[in-house]
């Protein structure tokens, strides 16, 4: 007999008693507990939301409004009162886009576009870069400006770029504006990609709003497969290795051995991939469950055979955004513009200053500065089409510098962008000299292997700058790895000491480098699994996520050698 009491007891046993206080906390913003896709709270809320959504599938405005309300709530749970900022900026952007669309005169259109770009970047600039600029200014000119107490609203970098794409595409007459504000707000605030991408382009997304909402069995299979993969990547691999190993080494690299530093660098490479692509996959999967197809954001990037290839596989929605709206806007491979020359020149000038100011201590910084300037110049001086390559490379370098800065306000992100920009330019030159090695042709296995290893290691090297809290720490990690000697006994001890971490890292890399045929086989089997089987698989993944989340962190250990 099932009585209310027994149900109640079962509930209490499994979930504990739910107090009013707790229930309230589910709906109130808490800066310490963000509403991420991999939390139990999100699952619970989504279940309720999704149930109602399924009933609304045949409506239009009711459904849009319903999703908007949930999206705004979702954003409120992540950023509190700043959901108003999202609303405000969407109102302004919508207004400006309407004006641009209706304005017939090109020159006026341009003025409104500039206003909107300035507004958007200004907002992003204030929230994300204000303090960075103040610190830089204070450091350079011994200034004494107070830092502002600024809260960085979650996902501002993403939705700003998304709104900008809408306006620029309207300006370029690639799309028509939405019929009204509700449709526009639905596009900007769509919660799956709201806080961490992928950056959805208006021209990909808007047409889907007007289509009849449909969800096929195949869509659901794809969605669940993405969500399962994303959950494992994000919550199991990435979270566990970062808290138990990578963070510690990058906190105080000098307290760890060369081997630990090297492994932490490899660890970070798989961590950031799993973190970022895992979250993207979940976003794409959740959007798909709602009947919306978002473009893929990562295509096993560490399999790239060149740095150019890498940027076609890593955070694709960002790199295409940057290509279409930044690179092309500043001239692309056609012409040089002031902006295209300004940032690289500033960067190299700064690099030279850094080299000169350190010359008393060591000649290495100056050598690095002069070396990288010379290398950059060579990439176009050696080219047959000098002028065009010069323009292209400057614009490319600008794109990478600013792209680096987009990831965070800090010098290390600029350095990271610069390294990638330089590598892209060098690779272009390389391609000009050895065109036979162009991708696509069936080159021999050894060469492909060699290219992948080189590209991967360059990317890992750049990640050190990306991860380290400052430039000095990055150099410590690199110096420390430089002291690596061959001591298999010591390595064994370390690997055994961090057994779980190293197993997960291995799992992550093996998964990443598996030939695609394996994934498609797995997908094939999953598709054929009956509904209940899929539910059990998904439930098991929930359990893995839960069990990893409650796993205590490994106590710190120092080895003796």
């Amino acid at each position: 007999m099932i009585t209310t009491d027994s149900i109640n007891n079962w509930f209490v046993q499994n979930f504990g008693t739910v107090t009013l206080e707790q229930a309230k906390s589910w709906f109130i913003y808490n800066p310490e507990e963000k509403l991420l896709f991999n939390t139990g709270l999100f699952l619970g809320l989504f279940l309720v939301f999704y149930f109602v959504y399924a009933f609304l599938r045949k409506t239009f405005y009711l459904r849009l409004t319903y999703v908007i309300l949930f999206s705004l709530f979702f954003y409120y749970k992540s950023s509190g009162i700043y959901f108003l900022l999202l609303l405000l900026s969407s109102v302004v952007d919508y207004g400006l886009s309407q004006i641009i669309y209706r304005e017939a005169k090109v020159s006026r259109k341009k003025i409104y576009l500039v206003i909107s770009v300035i507004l958007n970047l200004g907002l992003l600039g204030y929230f994300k870069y204000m303090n960075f600029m103040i610190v830089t200014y204070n450091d350079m000119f011994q200034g004494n400006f107070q830092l502002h107490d600024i809260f960085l609203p979650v996902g501002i970098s993403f939705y700003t770029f998304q709104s900008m794409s809408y306006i620029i595409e309207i300006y370029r007459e690639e799309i028509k504006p939405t019929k009204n504000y509700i449709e526009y707000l639905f596009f900007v605030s769509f919660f799956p990609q709201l806080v961490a991408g992928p950056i959805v382009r208006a021209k990909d997304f808007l047409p889907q709003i007007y289509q009849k909402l449909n969800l096929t069995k195949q869509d659901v299979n794809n969605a669940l497969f993405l969500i399962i993969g994303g959950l494992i990547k994000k919550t199991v691999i990435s979270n566990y290795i970062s808290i138990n190993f990578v963070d510690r080494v990058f906190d105080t690299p000098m307290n760890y051995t060369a081997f630990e530093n090297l492994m932490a660098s490899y660890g970070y490479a798989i961590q950031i991939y799993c973190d970022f692509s895992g979250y993207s996959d979940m976003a794409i999967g959740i959007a798909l469950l709602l009947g919306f197809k978002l473009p893929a954001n990562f295509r096993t990037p560490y399999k790239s055979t060149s740095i150019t290839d890498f940027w076609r596989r890593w955070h694709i929605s960002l790199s295409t955004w940057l290509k279409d709206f930044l690179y092309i806007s500043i001239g692309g491979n056609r012409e040089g513009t002031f902006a295209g020359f300004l940032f690289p020149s500033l960067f190299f000038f700064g690099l030279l200053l850094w080299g000169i100011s350190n010359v008393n201590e060591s000649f290495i910084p100056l050598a690095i500065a002069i070396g990288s300037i010379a290398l950059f110049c060579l990439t176009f001086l050696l080219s047959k089409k000098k002028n065009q390559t010069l323009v292209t490379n400057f614009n490319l370098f600008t794109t990478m510098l600013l792209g680096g800065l987009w990831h965070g306000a800090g010098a290390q992100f600029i350095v990271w962008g610069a390294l990638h920009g330089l590598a892209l330019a060098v690779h272009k030159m390389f391609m000009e000299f050895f065109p036979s090695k162009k991708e696509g042709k069936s080159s021999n296995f050894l060469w492909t292997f060699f290219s992948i290893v080189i590209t991967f290691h360059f990317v890992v090297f750049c990640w050190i700058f990306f991860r380290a809290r400052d430039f000095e720490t990055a150099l410590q990690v690199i110096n420390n790895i430089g002291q690596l000697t061959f001591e298999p006994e010591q390595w064994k001890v370390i690997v055994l000491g961090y057994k779980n971490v190293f197993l997960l890292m291995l799992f992550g890399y093996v998964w990443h480098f598996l030939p695609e045929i394996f994934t498609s086989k797995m997908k094939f089997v999953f598709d054929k699994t009956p509904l209940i089987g899929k539910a059990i698989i998904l439930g098991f993944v929930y359990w893995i996520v839960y069990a990893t989340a409650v796993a205590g962190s490994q106590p710190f250990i120092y080895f003796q050698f």
Partner: protein
Amino acid sequence: MNTKSYFFQSFAIVALAFIAFIGFKQILPDKIFPDSKVDSKNVLIDSLLLESVANDSLSLKGDSIAESEKKEAGEKINFDAAEGIEFPSETFDNYKGYQYLISFYEKLYQLEKNPQAKVRIAYYGDSMTDGDLIVQDVRSNYQERFGGNGVGFVSITSESAASRASVKSTYSKNWKMQSYLNVKKPISPFGVNGHVFFANDKANTTWVQYEAGTNKYATTLDNPTLFYGKSSKKGNVNFIIGKDTLRKSLVPNNLINTLKVTSGSIKAFKANFVHADSIPIYGFNFDNGSGVHVDNFSQRGNSGLPISMFNANVMQGFNNVLKYDLVILHYGTNVLNYGTKNYSWYQRGMTKTVNKIKESFPGVSILIISTADKSTKYDLEMKTDSAVVPLMKSQKRYALETESGFVNLYTLMGGDGSMVKWVDESPAKANKDYTHFNQRGAKAIGKLLYDQLNKGYEQYKGLRENRKTVDKRKTVRKTNTDSVSVIKDSVNE
């Protein structure tokens, strides 16, 4: 292909998965990763600690301490006047024990009157003070106010040498080192830093090189002096300063011998040891001869128990040259991870350690610094480890029993849940292991420690001013005479 709307099936999968999850949660274990025990022979942890923990698990654990603890918390602690000075009484809860630091405070007072005087502090610690973290901040706070230049005594090799910025040291890989961490019967007795080094590679030179760092009051190496021990054979050492080489011989006649590299301040030097194979080498001291000097004797994995193995005669030899006024014992991090909340074994062991210190450095003041806050994951949340408070209390008990001063680092940094705050703060002040402080946090801790010590000093000056005519007969420090009897004290039962 099926193009029928699949919304409700889709919902069913997600919802059924949730039910499946509840089922899995009931039948599967709670944790996916077993708490793997690392083979302790590869981990830096002191062997005395492992022994004590093993012995402790054999004895019965009484958990009925709650009642007595409540009583203890409010207990009044009255001090006997020493040198006519009596600090106000305290409760166990807020115990600081300034009274037992009087001899140290008096030396500081004398230094304040006569800047040529000297005060020396030995700061023993674990990985919290690795790389001179915390200690360098305590040192610079003291040197800022009382004068003094130099980083104090520095070991030959150290696993944390690379992370130390206050003095840069590099060394050849062929040094033979024995540490009190895991060696019970060293070839020659351990030095004041708990280590002994031998340059017994006959084929290659064994060298160590020091270079001053950039910290304030430590930009030069002042009066670098080598400390070495007793041996039947003689040896040589070549000091290379810039382009000059000074060849000096080592005369290992006494328990502790010193050899000055050069007088005055230099930026860097290198010492090549030649035919010194059996001579115990301890390290170099850098100080300008006046003001406050603080020696950092940090050792990763140390619980503090190994100090009880010190050879008192050798330590007295060190003390004759270095003349310590305060010994700080900052331990605890390494005894938190053993699943025990009953720390009476640790209390007993550390009492022995403190008694050894008293025997080694007669008349010295002793300060115990408690464990800092440390977090562990309980369910899904990082919280203060349940062992922190019991450990802190036991540390307070042996501080009180051995008449030592006490710093409650746990409450000083904010008490319950403070480590989570220090880690999450932006910019962060502690590392993601929720145990160690970073540079920024260490600086804050150094300041907190100095401030508490200094508060006692200011109070001491006030009391000194107001004391009645000094009774000269009472100048013998009470703690000193006690040290012999405490060894047989009833705390051990």
